[in-house]
Protein backbone atom coordinates (compact mmCIF):
# COMPACT_ATOMS: atom_id res chain seq x y z
CA UNK A 1 0.00 0.00 0.00
CA UNK A 2 1.20 3.46 -0.88
CA UNK A 3 -0.19 6.84 -0.07
CA UNK A 4 0.51 9.98 -2.03
CA UNK A 5 -1.24 13.35 -1.83
CA UNK A 6 -3.98 11.82 0.28
CA UNK A 7 -4.67 9.09 -2.30
CA UNK A 8 -4.19 5.43 -1.47
CA UNK A 9 -2.82 2.91 -3.92
CA UNK A 10 -3.11 -0.88 -3.85
CA UNK A 11 0.10 -2.39 -5.23
CA UNK A 12 -0.10 -5.60 -7.24
CA UNK A 13 3.28 -6.70 -8.58
CA UNK A 14 2.44 -9.06 -11.40
CA UNK A 15 5.93 -10.27 -12.25
CA UNK A 16 8.60 -11.29 -9.78
CA UNK A 17 10.94 -14.15 -9.00
CA UNK A 18 12.52 -16.11 -6.18
CA UNK A 19 15.46 -17.65 -7.97
CA UNK A 20 18.56 -19.65 -7.17
CA UNK A 21 21.31 -18.95 -9.67
CA UNK A 22 24.19 -19.72 -7.31
CA UNK A 23 27.08 -21.85 -8.65
CA UNK A 24 25.83 -24.86 -6.63
CA UNK A 25 22.79 -24.92 -8.91
CA UNK A 26 24.67 -24.73 -12.22
CA UNK A 27 24.40 -27.79 -14.47
CA UNK A 28 27.78 -29.47 -15.03
CA UNK A 29 28.99 -28.65 -18.51
CA UNK A 30 26.54 -25.77 -18.87
CA UNK A 31 28.23 -23.44 -16.40
CA UNK A 32 28.94 -20.91 -19.15
CA UNK A 33 25.22 -20.48 -19.81
CA UNK A 34 24.11 -20.46 -16.18
CA UNK A 35 26.79 -17.92 -15.31
CA UNK A 36 26.10 -15.82 -18.40
CA UNK A 37 22.37 -15.75 -17.75
CA UNK A 38 22.57 -14.46 -14.21
CA UNK A 39 25.36 -12.03 -15.06
CA UNK A 40 23.20 -10.67 -17.85
CA UNK A 41 20.33 -10.17 -15.40
CA UNK A 42 22.77 -8.52 -13.03
CA UNK A 43 23.78 -6.12 -15.81
CA UNK A 44 20.11 -5.21 -16.21
CA UNK A 45 20.04 -4.32 -12.52
CA UNK A 46 22.79 -1.83 -13.37
CA UNK A 47 20.17 0.21 -15.26
CA UNK A 48 18.46 1.06 -11.96
CA UNK A 49 19.59 3.64 -9.37
CA UNK A 50 23.07 2.96 -7.97
CA UNK A 51 21.88 2.65 -4.37
CA UNK A 52 19.70 -0.31 -5.39
CA UNK A 53 22.53 -2.36 -6.93
CA UNK A 54 23.44 -5.69 -5.33
CA UNK A 55 26.70 -7.63 -5.32
CA UNK A 56 26.69 -10.47 -7.86
CA UNK A 57 26.89 -13.03 -5.05
CA UNK A 58 23.80 -11.63 -3.33
CA UNK A 59 22.04 -11.38 -6.69
CA UNK A 60 22.73 -15.05 -7.47
CA UNK A 61 20.85 -16.19 -4.40
CA UNK A 62 18.84 -14.15 -1.94
CA UNK A 63 17.01 -15.24 1.16
CA UNK A 64 13.36 -15.44 2.14
CA UNK A 65 14.08 -12.57 4.52
CA UNK A 66 15.49 -10.48 1.65
CA UNK A 67 12.38 -11.25 -0.38
CA UNK A 68 10.10 -10.23 2.46
CA UNK A 69 11.95 -6.98 3.08
CA UNK A 70 12.36 -5.99 -0.57
CA UNK A 71 8.84 -6.87 -1.68
CA UNK A 72 6.34 -6.65 1.17
CA UNK A 73 8.53 -4.26 3.14
CA UNK A 74 8.32 -1.97 0.13
CA UNK A 75 4.53 -1.86 0.27
CA UNK A 76 3.59 -4.53 -2.28
CA UNK A 77 0.15 -5.88 -1.32
CA UNK A 78 -0.06 -8.82 -3.70
CA UNK A 79 2.48 -10.37 -6.03
CA UNK A 80 2.70 -13.07 -8.68
CA UNK A 81 5.67 -15.41 -8.66
CA UNK A 82 6.53 -16.39 -12.20
CA UNK A 83 8.04 -19.84 -12.56
CA UNK A 84 10.99 -19.99 -14.96
CA UNK A 85 12.70 -23.36 -15.33
CA UNK A 86 15.84 -23.20 -17.52
CA UNK A 87 16.71 -26.70 -16.32
CA UNK A 88 19.30 -27.17 -19.05
CA UNK A 89 21.38 -24.62 -17.17
CA UNK A 90 20.16 -24.77 -13.54
CA UNK A 91 19.98 -28.19 -11.89
CA UNK A 92 16.91 -27.46 -9.77
CA UNK A 93 15.61 -24.87 -12.17
CA UNK A 94 16.12 -21.12 -12.09
CA UNK A 95 12.94 -20.78 -10.06
CA UNK A 96 10.70 -23.75 -10.60
CA UNK A 97 7.24 -24.03 -9.17
CA UNK A 98 8.34 -25.97 -6.08
CA UNK A 99 11.06 -23.49 -5.24
CA UNK A 100 8.55 -20.66 -5.57
CA UNK A 101 5.97 -22.60 -3.56
CA UNK A 102 8.38 -22.69 -0.61
CA UNK A 103 7.35 -19.07 -0.01
CA UNK A 104 3.63 -19.87 0.19
CA UNK A 105 3.72 -21.17 3.77
CA UNK A 106 4.93 -17.84 4.95
CA UNK A 107 3.28 -15.41 2.52
CA UNK A 108 0.38 -17.41 1.11
CA UNK A 109 -2.02 -14.55 1.77
CA UNK A 110 0.02 -12.18 -0.35
CA UNK A 111 1.56 -14.38 -3.04
CA UNK A 112 0.04 -15.92 -6.15
CA UNK A 113 1.96 -18.79 -7.69
CA UNK A 114 2.06 -19.14 -11.45
CA UNK A 115 3.03 -22.32 -13.26
CA UNK A 116 4.61 -22.76 -16.64
CA UNK A 117 4.48 -25.13 -19.56
CA UNK A 118 6.57 -25.97 -22.57
CA UNK A 119 4.93 -27.56 -25.64
CA UNK A 120 8.10 -29.54 -26.42
CA UNK A 121 7.52 -31.67 -23.35
CA UNK A 122 4.42 -33.19 -24.96
CA UNK A 123 2.14 -35.48 -22.97
CA UNK A 124 4.43 -35.56 -19.95
CA UNK A 125 4.36 -31.77 -19.84
CA UNK A 126 0.61 -31.72 -20.11
CA UNK A 127 0.28 -34.17 -17.23
CA UNK A 128 2.69 -32.11 -15.15
CA UNK A 129 0.61 -29.00 -15.81
CA UNK A 130 -2.50 -30.81 -14.55
CA UNK A 131 -0.60 -31.96 -11.46
CA UNK A 132 0.69 -28.47 -10.76
CA UNK A 133 -2.81 -27.11 -11.13
CA UNK A 134 -4.26 -29.76 -8.82
CA UNK A 135 -1.64 -28.91 -6.22
CA UNK A 136 -1.54 -25.13 -6.46
CA UNK A 137 -4.80 -23.99 -8.11
CA UNK A 138 -3.10 -22.04 -10.86
CA UNK A 139 -4.56 -18.86 -12.32
CA UNK A 140 -1.70 -18.19 -14.69
CA UNK A 141 1.47 -19.43 -16.34
CA UNK A 142 4.73 -17.94 -17.44
CA UNK A 143 5.71 -18.87 -20.98
CA UNK A 144 9.34 -18.35 -21.88
CA UNK A 145 9.64 -19.03 -25.60
CA UNK A 146 13.44 -18.86 -25.79
CA UNK A 147 14.11 -21.71 -23.34
CA UNK A 148 16.59 -24.29 -24.60
CA UNK A 149 15.35 -27.88 -24.51
CA UNK A 150 17.12 -30.98 -25.81
CA UNK A 151 18.83 -29.23 -28.72
CA UNK A 152 15.90 -26.93 -29.48
CA UNK A 153 16.42 -23.25 -28.78
CA UNK A 154 12.84 -22.11 -28.62
CA UNK A 155 9.21 -22.33 -29.67
CA UNK A 156 6.24 -20.25 -30.77
CA UNK A 157 2.70 -20.10 -29.42
CA UNK A 158 1.42 -21.10 -32.84
CA UNK A 159 3.37 -24.38 -32.86
CA UNK A 160 0.83 -27.21 -33.19
CA UNK A 161 2.28 -28.77 -30.03
CA UNK A 162 1.22 -25.67 -28.04
CA UNK A 163 -2.49 -26.03 -28.82
CA UNK A 164 -3.23 -28.85 -26.30
CA UNK A 165 -1.56 -26.76 -23.60
CA UNK A 166 -3.58 -23.65 -24.43
CA UNK A 167 -6.75 -25.78 -24.54
CA UNK A 168 -5.86 -27.33 -21.19
CA UNK A 169 -5.31 -23.92 -19.60
CA UNK A 170 -8.67 -22.70 -20.94
CA UNK A 171 -10.35 -25.86 -19.64
CA UNK A 172 -8.81 -25.57 -16.16
CA UNK A 173 -9.37 -21.82 -15.84
CA UNK A 174 -5.63 -21.06 -15.90
CA UNK A 175 -6.49 -17.90 -17.73
CA UNK A 176 -3.47 -15.59 -17.58
CA UNK A 177 -0.59 -16.38 -19.93
CA UNK A 178 2.46 -14.23 -19.22
CA UNK A 179 4.39 -14.40 -22.45
CA UNK A 180 8.06 -13.56 -22.35
CA UNK A 181 9.90 -13.46 -25.64
CA UNK A 182 13.60 -14.14 -25.67
CA UNK A 183 16.37 -14.02 -28.23
CA UNK A 184 16.15 -17.56 -29.59
CA UNK A 185 13.38 -19.52 -31.26
CA UNK A 186 12.94 -22.15 -33.95
CA UNK A 187 13.78 -21.48 -36.73
CA UNK A 188 16.79 -19.40 -35.76
CA UNK A 189 16.70 -17.36 -38.97
CA UNK A 190 13.41 -15.69 -37.97
CA UNK A 191 12.97 -12.77 -35.61
CA UNK A 192 12.64 -14.40 -32.20
CA UNK A 193 10.98 -11.31 -30.71
CA UNK A 194 8.17 -11.25 -33.25
CA UNK A 195 4.79 -11.21 -31.48
CA UNK A 196 2.57 -12.34 -34.33
CA UNK A 197 2.16 -15.75 -32.70
CA UNK A 198 0.66 -14.03 -29.65
CA UNK A 199 -1.67 -12.17 -32.00
CA UNK A 200 -2.90 -15.46 -33.47
CA UNK A 201 -3.60 -17.26 -30.23
CA UNK A 202 -5.07 -14.16 -28.58
CA UNK A 203 -7.69 -14.12 -31.32
CA UNK A 204 -8.31 -17.86 -31.07
CA UNK A 205 -8.66 -17.83 -27.28
CA UNK A 206 -10.45 -14.50 -26.81
CA UNK A 207 -12.84 -14.84 -23.89
CA UNK A 208 -10.90 -17.82 -22.51
CA UNK A 209 -7.31 -16.68 -22.02
CA UNK A 210 -5.55 -13.39 -21.40
CA UNK A 211 -2.08 -12.75 -22.78
CA UNK A 212 0.09 -10.46 -20.72
CA UNK A 213 3.09 -9.69 -22.89
CA UNK A 214 5.96 -9.12 -20.50
CA UNK A 215 8.41 -6.33 -21.23
CA UNK A 216 5.65 -5.02 -23.55
CA UNK A 217 7.29 -7.04 -26.29
CA UNK A 218 10.59 -5.17 -25.95
CA UNK A 219 12.56 -4.96 -28.16
CA UNK A 220 9.54 -5.05 -30.50
CA UNK A 221 7.33 -2.54 -28.78
CA UNK A 222 6.03 -1.30 -32.13
CA UNK A 223 4.78 -4.75 -33.19
CA UNK A 224 3.34 -5.24 -29.74
CA UNK A 225 1.43 -1.93 -29.77
CA UNK A 226 -0.01 -2.46 -33.25
CA UNK A 227 -1.17 -5.91 -32.13
CA UNK A 228 -2.40 -5.08 -28.61
CA UNK A 229 -4.53 -2.21 -29.87
CA UNK A 230 -6.62 -4.76 -31.79
CA UNK A 231 -6.78 -7.62 -29.30
CA UNK A 232 -9.04 -7.16 -26.25
CA UNK A 233 -7.31 -9.92 -24.29
CA UNK A 234 -3.72 -8.70 -24.74
CA UNK A 235 -2.12 -6.74 -21.90
CA UNK A 236 1.12 -4.79 -21.55
CA UNK A 237 3.32 -6.12 -18.73
CA UNK A 238 5.50 -3.18 -17.72
CA UNK A 239 8.42 -5.14 -16.30
CA UNK A 240 11.66 -3.80 -17.84
CA UNK A 241 9.89 -0.66 -19.12
CA UNK A 242 9.97 0.78 -15.62
CA UNK A 243 13.10 -1.01 -14.38
CA UNK A 244 15.19 -0.64 -17.51
CA UNK A 245 14.19 2.79 -18.76
CA UNK A 246 12.71 4.98 -16.04
CA UNK A 247 16.02 5.67 -14.34
CA UNK A 248 18.51 4.98 -17.15
CA UNK A 249 16.68 6.67 -20.03
CA UNK A 250 13.93 8.92 -18.62
CA UNK A 251 13.11 10.58 -21.93
CA UNK A 252 12.61 7.24 -23.64
CA UNK A 253 10.57 6.15 -20.64
CA UNK A 254 8.25 9.14 -21.10
CA UNK A 255 7.78 8.35 -24.76
CA UNK A 256 7.36 4.60 -24.30
CA UNK A 257 4.73 5.24 -21.63
CA UNK A 258 3.08 7.75 -23.97
CA UNK A 259 2.94 5.22 -26.79
CA UNK A 260 1.58 2.50 -24.50
CA UNK A 261 -1.08 4.85 -23.13
CA UNK A 262 -2.05 5.79 -26.69
CA UNK A 263 -2.07 2.34 -28.32
CA UNK A 264 -2.84 0.00 -25.43
CA UNK A 265 -4.43 2.27 -22.83
CA UNK A 266 -4.27 2.50 -19.04
CA UNK A 267 -6.87 -0.27 -18.60
CA UNK A 268 -4.53 -2.89 -20.07
CA UNK A 269 -1.16 -2.00 -18.56
CA UNK A 270 0.09 -3.90 -15.52
CA UNK A 271 2.98 -3.13 -13.20
CA UNK A 272 5.64 -5.79 -12.69
CA UNK A 273 8.92 -5.13 -10.92
CA UNK A 274 10.77 -8.16 -12.32
CA UNK A 275 12.29 -8.50 -8.84
CA UNK A 276 15.08 -9.49 -8.12
CA UNK A 277 16.35 -7.83 -11.27
CA UNK A 278 15.10 -4.59 -9.76
CA UNK A 279 13.65 -3.85 -6.33
CA UNK A 280 9.99 -2.81 -6.43
CA UNK A 281 10.32 0.22 -4.15
CA UNK A 282 12.01 2.73 -6.44
CA UNK A 283 9.89 1.61 -9.37
CA UNK A 284 6.59 2.08 -7.52
CA UNK A 285 7.66 5.44 -6.13
CA UNK A 286 8.91 6.49 -9.53
CA UNK A 287 5.63 5.57 -11.21
CA UNK A 288 3.62 7.37 -8.53
CA UNK A 289 5.70 10.50 -8.98
CA UNK A 290 5.86 10.30 -12.76
CA UNK A 291 4.06 12.86 -14.89
CA UNK A 292 4.15 13.20 -18.64
CA UNK A 293 6.30 16.31 -19.18
CA UNK A 294 4.41 19.40 -20.25
CA UNK A 295 6.54 19.80 -23.35
CA UNK A 296 5.78 20.01 -27.06
CA UNK A 297 7.67 16.76 -27.70
CA UNK A 298 5.09 14.90 -25.61
CA UNK A 299 1.98 16.81 -26.69
CA UNK A 300 0.68 13.86 -28.75
CA UNK A 301 0.49 11.53 -25.77
CA UNK A 302 -2.36 10.89 -23.31
CA UNK A 303 -1.83 11.90 -19.69
CA UNK A 304 -1.89 9.55 -16.72
CA UNK A 305 -3.82 10.73 -13.67
CA UNK A 306 -4.10 9.26 -10.17
CA UNK A 307 -6.84 6.84 -11.26
CA UNK A 308 -4.75 5.68 -14.20
CA UNK A 309 -1.86 5.02 -11.82
CA UNK A 310 -4.23 3.10 -9.53
CA UNK A 311 -5.14 0.84 -12.42
CA UNK A 312 -1.59 0.23 -13.61
CA UNK A 313 -0.09 -0.27 -10.16
CA UNK A 314 -2.77 -2.61 -8.90
CA UNK A 315 -6.35 -2.67 -10.06
CA UNK A 316 -5.82 -4.06 -13.56
CA UNK A 317 -3.82 -7.08 -12.44
CA UNK A 318 -6.08 -7.63 -9.43
CA UNK A 319 -8.97 -7.95 -11.86
CA UNK A 320 -7.05 -10.48 -13.99
CA UNK A 321 -6.38 -12.58 -10.88
CA UNK A 322 -9.86 -12.15 -9.30
CA UNK A 323 -8.37 -10.45 -6.27
CA UNK A 324 -10.83 -8.32 -4.35
CA UNK A 325 -9.32 -4.93 -3.69
CA UNK A 326 -10.45 -3.22 -0.47
CA UNK A 327 -12.86 -0.35 -1.02
CA UNK A 328 -10.43 2.33 0.09
CA UNK A 329 -8.10 1.61 -2.85
CA UNK A 330 -10.69 1.50 -5.59
CA UNK A 331 -11.42 4.31 -7.98
CA UNK A 332 -14.09 6.46 -6.30
CA UNK A 333 -16.72 6.17 -9.07
CA UNK A 334 -16.15 2.44 -9.31
CA UNK A 335 -16.38 2.02 -5.54
CA UNK A 336 -19.66 3.98 -5.52
CA UNK A 337 -21.18 1.66 -8.11
CA UNK A 338 -21.66 -1.89 -6.77
CA UNK A 339 -22.18 -3.25 -10.29
CA UNK A 340 -18.65 -2.19 -11.21
CA UNK A 341 -16.95 -3.82 -8.23
CA UNK A 342 -14.13 -6.15 -9.18
CA UNK A 343 -14.57 -9.90 -9.09
CA UNK A 344 -14.46 -12.13 -6.10
CA UNK A 345 -11.46 -13.92 -4.77
CA UNK A 346 -11.17 -17.55 -5.50
Amino acid sequence: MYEKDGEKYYIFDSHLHFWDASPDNWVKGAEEYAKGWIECFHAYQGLGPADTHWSLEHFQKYSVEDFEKDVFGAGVDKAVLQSTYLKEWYTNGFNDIDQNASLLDRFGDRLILNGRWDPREGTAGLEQLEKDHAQYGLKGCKLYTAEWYKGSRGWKLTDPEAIPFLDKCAELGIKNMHVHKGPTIWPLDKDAFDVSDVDHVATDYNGKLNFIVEHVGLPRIEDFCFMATQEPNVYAGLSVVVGGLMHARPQFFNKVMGELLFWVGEDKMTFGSDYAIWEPKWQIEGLLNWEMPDDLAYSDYPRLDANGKRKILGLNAAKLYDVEVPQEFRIPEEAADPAAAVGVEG
Partner: protein
Amino acid sequence: MSLKSRVIAALGTVYDPELDEPITTLGFVGSCVVTAEGDVSVRLRLPTPQCAPNFAYLMAADARSAVRRLPEVRGVTVVLEDHYTGAEINAAIGRGEEFASAFPGETAGDLDALRELFQRKALLARQARVCQRLLDDGATPETVVARRVADLPDTPDAVRVAALRAALGLPHDGDAPALIAGDGAGLTAADLPMWLRRAKLVSLSLEANGGMCRDLLRVRYGNTDEEEVAS
Protein backbone atom coordinates in the same frame (compact mmCIF):
# COMPACT_ATOMS: atom_id res chain seq x y z
CA MET B 1 45.15 7.42 -44.23
CA SER B 2 46.63 4.34 -42.58
CA LEU B 3 45.32 0.89 -43.32
CA LYS B 4 44.09 0.73 -39.75
CA SER B 5 42.03 3.87 -40.28
CA ARG B 6 40.58 2.46 -43.46
CA VAL B 7 39.71 -0.80 -41.72
CA ILE B 8 37.92 1.16 -39.00
CA ALA B 9 36.13 3.20 -41.65
CA ALA B 10 35.08 -0.02 -43.40
CA LEU B 11 33.70 -1.35 -40.11
CA GLY B 12 31.77 1.91 -39.82
CA THR B 13 29.76 0.89 -42.89
CA VAL B 14 28.52 -2.23 -41.07
CA TYR B 15 25.15 -1.60 -39.45
CA ASP B 16 23.48 -3.47 -36.63
CA PRO B 17 20.55 -4.66 -38.73
CA GLU B 18 18.18 -4.52 -35.77
CA LEU B 19 19.14 -1.05 -34.54
CA ASP B 20 20.13 0.56 -37.87
CA GLU B 21 23.29 2.06 -36.40
CA PRO B 22 26.96 1.41 -37.30
CA ILE B 23 28.62 -1.20 -35.09
CA THR B 24 31.46 1.24 -34.46
CA THR B 25 29.29 3.95 -32.89
CA LEU B 26 27.41 1.33 -30.87
CA GLY B 27 30.72 0.24 -29.33
CA PHE B 28 30.43 -3.32 -30.66
CA VAL B 29 33.97 -3.36 -32.08
CA GLY B 30 35.94 -4.39 -29.02
CA SER B 31 39.32 -4.39 -30.74
CA CYS B 32 40.84 -4.21 -34.18
CA VAL B 33 44.45 -5.20 -34.84
CA VAL B 34 46.14 -4.66 -38.21
CA THR B 35 49.61 -6.07 -38.91
CA ALA B 36 52.18 -4.60 -41.28
CA GLU B 37 51.52 -7.55 -43.59
CA GLY B 38 47.85 -6.62 -43.91
CA ASP B 39 46.34 -9.22 -41.61
CA VAL B 40 43.31 -7.91 -39.74
CA SER B 41 41.85 -9.29 -36.55
CA VAL B 42 38.53 -7.87 -35.35
CA ARG B 43 36.82 -8.77 -32.10
CA LEU B 44 33.15 -7.95 -31.70
CA ARG B 45 31.37 -7.73 -28.36
CA LEU B 46 27.65 -7.42 -27.76
CA PRO B 47 25.55 -6.10 -24.87
CA THR B 48 24.57 -9.56 -23.60
CA PRO B 49 25.79 -13.15 -24.12
CA GLN B 50 22.28 -13.98 -25.39
CA CYS B 51 21.92 -11.33 -28.07
CA ALA B 52 19.99 -12.90 -30.95
CA PRO B 53 22.29 -15.26 -32.91
CA ASN B 54 20.88 -14.23 -36.29
CA PHE B 55 21.73 -10.55 -35.88
CA ALA B 56 25.06 -11.42 -34.27
CA TYR B 57 25.95 -13.56 -37.28
CA LEU B 58 24.94 -10.82 -39.74
CA MET B 59 27.16 -8.25 -38.03
CA ALA B 60 30.13 -10.60 -37.91
CA ALA B 61 29.68 -11.70 -41.53
CA ASP B 62 29.17 -8.13 -42.74
CA ALA B 63 32.26 -7.00 -40.82
CA ARG B 64 34.34 -9.70 -42.48
CA SER B 65 33.03 -8.78 -45.95
CA ALA B 66 33.57 -5.05 -45.43
CA VAL B 67 37.20 -5.51 -44.37
CA ARG B 68 37.95 -8.08 -47.09
CA ARG B 69 36.87 -5.58 -49.73
CA LEU B 70 39.92 -3.41 -48.92
CA PRO B 71 42.58 -4.37 -51.52
CA GLU B 72 45.55 -4.09 -49.12
CA VAL B 73 44.05 -6.53 -46.66
CA ARG B 74 45.60 -10.00 -46.84
CA GLY B 75 43.51 -11.89 -44.34
CA VAL B 76 40.65 -11.19 -41.95
CA THR B 77 39.59 -12.88 -38.76
CA VAL B 78 36.37 -11.77 -37.09
CA VAL B 79 35.60 -13.21 -33.68
CA LEU B 80 32.43 -12.72 -31.66
CA GLU B 81 33.37 -12.62 -27.96
CA ASP B 82 31.51 -13.92 -24.92
CA HIS B 83 28.38 -15.12 -26.71
CA TYR B 84 26.22 -18.20 -26.12
CA THR B 85 26.45 -19.21 -29.76
CA GLY B 86 29.89 -17.69 -30.36
CA ALA B 87 31.58 -21.01 -31.09
CA GLU B 88 29.07 -21.90 -33.82
CA ILE B 89 29.03 -18.41 -35.32
CA ASN B 90 32.81 -17.95 -35.23
CA ALA B 91 33.38 -21.30 -36.93
CA ALA B 92 30.91 -20.49 -39.73
CA ILE B 93 32.31 -16.98 -40.23
CA GLY B 94 35.85 -18.35 -40.31
CA ARG B 95 34.87 -20.79 -43.06
CA GLY B 96 32.99 -18.03 -44.91
CA GLU B 97 29.80 -20.04 -44.61
CA GLU B 98 26.16 -19.11 -44.26
CA PHE B 99 24.19 -18.83 -41.05
CA ALA B 100 22.42 -22.11 -41.75
CA SER B 101 25.73 -24.01 -41.66
CA ALA B 102 26.40 -22.68 -38.15
CA PHE B 103 23.15 -24.19 -36.88
CA PRO B 104 22.35 -27.36 -38.83
CA GLY B 105 18.69 -28.27 -38.56
CA GLU B 106 17.85 -25.12 -36.64
CA THR B 107 17.04 -22.87 -39.58
CA ALA B 108 14.36 -22.90 -42.25
CA GLY B 109 16.00 -20.67 -44.84
CA ASP B 110 18.53 -17.85 -44.99
CA LEU B 111 18.68 -14.47 -43.31
CA ASP B 112 17.63 -12.39 -46.34
CA ALA B 113 14.00 -12.07 -45.22
CA LEU B 114 15.08 -11.11 -41.70
CA ARG B 115 17.44 -8.45 -43.04
CA GLU B 116 14.77 -7.04 -45.33
CA LEU B 117 12.20 -6.92 -42.53
CA PHE B 118 14.54 -4.79 -40.46
CA GLN B 119 15.59 -2.61 -43.38
CA ARG B 120 11.91 -1.81 -43.79
CA LYS B 121 11.58 -0.92 -40.11
CA ALA B 122 14.71 1.21 -40.36
CA LEU B 123 13.38 2.99 -43.44
CA LEU B 124 10.10 3.80 -41.70
CA ALA B 125 11.92 5.06 -38.61
CA ARG B 126 14.28 7.27 -40.62
CA GLN B 127 11.42 8.63 -42.72
CA ALA B 128 9.56 9.52 -39.52
CA ARG B 129 12.47 11.68 -38.46
CA VAL B 130 12.79 13.27 -41.91
CA CYS B 131 9.05 14.00 -41.92
CA GLN B 132 8.98 15.41 -38.41
CA ARG B 133 11.87 17.70 -39.23
CA LEU B 134 10.04 19.05 -42.28
CA LEU B 135 6.92 19.67 -40.20
CA ASP B 136 8.96 21.33 -37.45
CA ASP B 137 10.44 23.63 -40.08
CA GLY B 138 6.97 24.81 -41.03
CA ALA B 139 5.89 22.44 -43.79
CA THR B 140 2.25 21.33 -43.93
CA PRO B 141 1.10 17.75 -44.66
CA GLU B 142 0.24 18.90 -48.20
CA THR B 143 3.68 20.31 -48.88
CA VAL B 144 5.46 17.39 -47.17
CA VAL B 145 3.87 14.79 -49.42
CA ALA B 146 4.68 16.92 -52.48
CA ARG B 147 8.42 16.87 -51.71
CA ARG B 148 10.77 14.87 -53.91
CA VAL B 149 13.95 13.07 -52.87
CA ALA B 150 15.95 15.88 -54.53
CA ASP B 151 14.27 18.43 -52.21
CA LEU B 152 15.51 16.76 -49.03
CA PRO B 153 18.23 18.39 -46.96
CA ASP B 154 21.55 16.56 -46.75
CA THR B 155 21.00 15.16 -43.25
CA PRO B 156 22.26 11.77 -42.00
CA ASP B 157 18.67 10.49 -41.85
CA ALA B 158 17.94 11.53 -45.44
CA VAL B 159 21.19 9.98 -46.67
CA ARG B 160 20.40 6.73 -44.88
CA VAL B 161 16.84 6.78 -46.25
CA ALA B 162 18.27 6.88 -49.79
CA ALA B 163 20.64 3.98 -49.04
CA LEU B 164 17.86 1.87 -47.52
CA ARG B 165 15.52 2.57 -50.41
CA ALA B 166 18.22 1.51 -52.85
CA ALA B 167 18.95 -1.66 -50.86
CA LEU B 168 15.25 -2.53 -50.81
CA GLY B 169 14.78 -1.89 -54.53
CA LEU B 170 12.41 1.00 -53.82
CA PRO B 171 12.42 4.19 -55.91
CA HIS B 172 15.17 6.54 -54.76
CA ASP B 173 16.04 8.85 -57.65
CA GLY B 174 15.66 12.61 -57.32
CA ASP B 175 12.15 12.67 -58.79
CA ALA B 176 10.75 9.99 -56.47
CA PRO B 177 8.49 11.09 -53.59
CA ALA B 178 10.52 12.10 -50.52
CA LEU B 179 8.35 9.89 -48.30
CA ILE B 180 6.98 6.55 -49.40
CA ALA B 181 4.85 3.72 -48.10
CA GLY B 182 6.16 0.17 -47.93
CA ASP B 183 5.17 -0.51 -51.54
CA GLY B 184 7.13 2.51 -52.83
CA ALA B 185 4.06 4.67 -53.52
CA GLY B 186 3.89 8.24 -52.29
CA LEU B 187 1.71 9.25 -49.34
CA THR B 188 -1.35 11.49 -49.34
CA ALA B 189 -1.81 14.41 -46.98
CA ALA B 190 -4.78 12.59 -45.47
CA ASP B 191 -2.69 9.48 -44.79
CA LEU B 192 0.17 11.41 -43.28
CA PRO B 193 -0.90 11.85 -39.61
CA MET B 194 -1.57 8.14 -39.00
CA TRP B 195 1.41 7.06 -41.08
CA LEU B 196 3.60 9.40 -39.03
CA ARG B 197 2.14 8.18 -35.74
CA ARG B 198 3.07 4.59 -36.60
CA ALA B 199 6.43 5.54 -38.09
CA LYS B 200 7.36 7.53 -34.99
CA LEU B 201 6.63 4.52 -32.81
CA VAL B 202 8.98 2.42 -34.94
CA SER B 203 11.59 5.17 -34.64
CA LEU B 204 11.16 5.30 -30.87
CA SER B 205 11.45 1.51 -30.67
CA LEU B 206 14.76 1.46 -32.54
CA GLU B 207 16.13 4.37 -30.52
CA ALA B 208 15.04 2.94 -27.17
CA ASN B 209 16.54 -0.45 -28.08
CA GLY B 210 19.78 1.26 -29.08
CA GLY B 211 19.79 3.11 -25.77
CA MET B 212 19.26 -0.06 -23.79
CA CYS B 213 21.97 -1.89 -25.76
CA ARG B 214 24.43 0.94 -25.05
CA ASP B 215 23.54 0.91 -21.35
CA LEU B 216 23.95 -2.86 -21.09
CA LEU B 217 27.22 -2.80 -23.02
CA ARG B 218 28.54 -0.13 -20.66
CA VAL B 219 27.54 -2.15 -17.60
CA ARG B 220 29.14 -5.26 -19.13
CA TYR B 221 32.42 -3.82 -20.40
CA GLY B 222 32.79 -0.45 -18.69
CA ASN B 223 33.45 2.61 -20.80
CA THR B 224 32.67 1.90 -24.46
CA ASP B 225 33.45 5.24 -26.09
CA GLU B 226 34.11 5.21 -29.79
CA GLU B 227 37.74 6.27 -29.26
CA GLU B 228 38.40 3.02 -27.48
CA VAL B 229 37.40 1.06 -30.58
CA ALA B 230 40.55 1.98 -32.43
CA SER B 231 42.93 0.81 -29.70
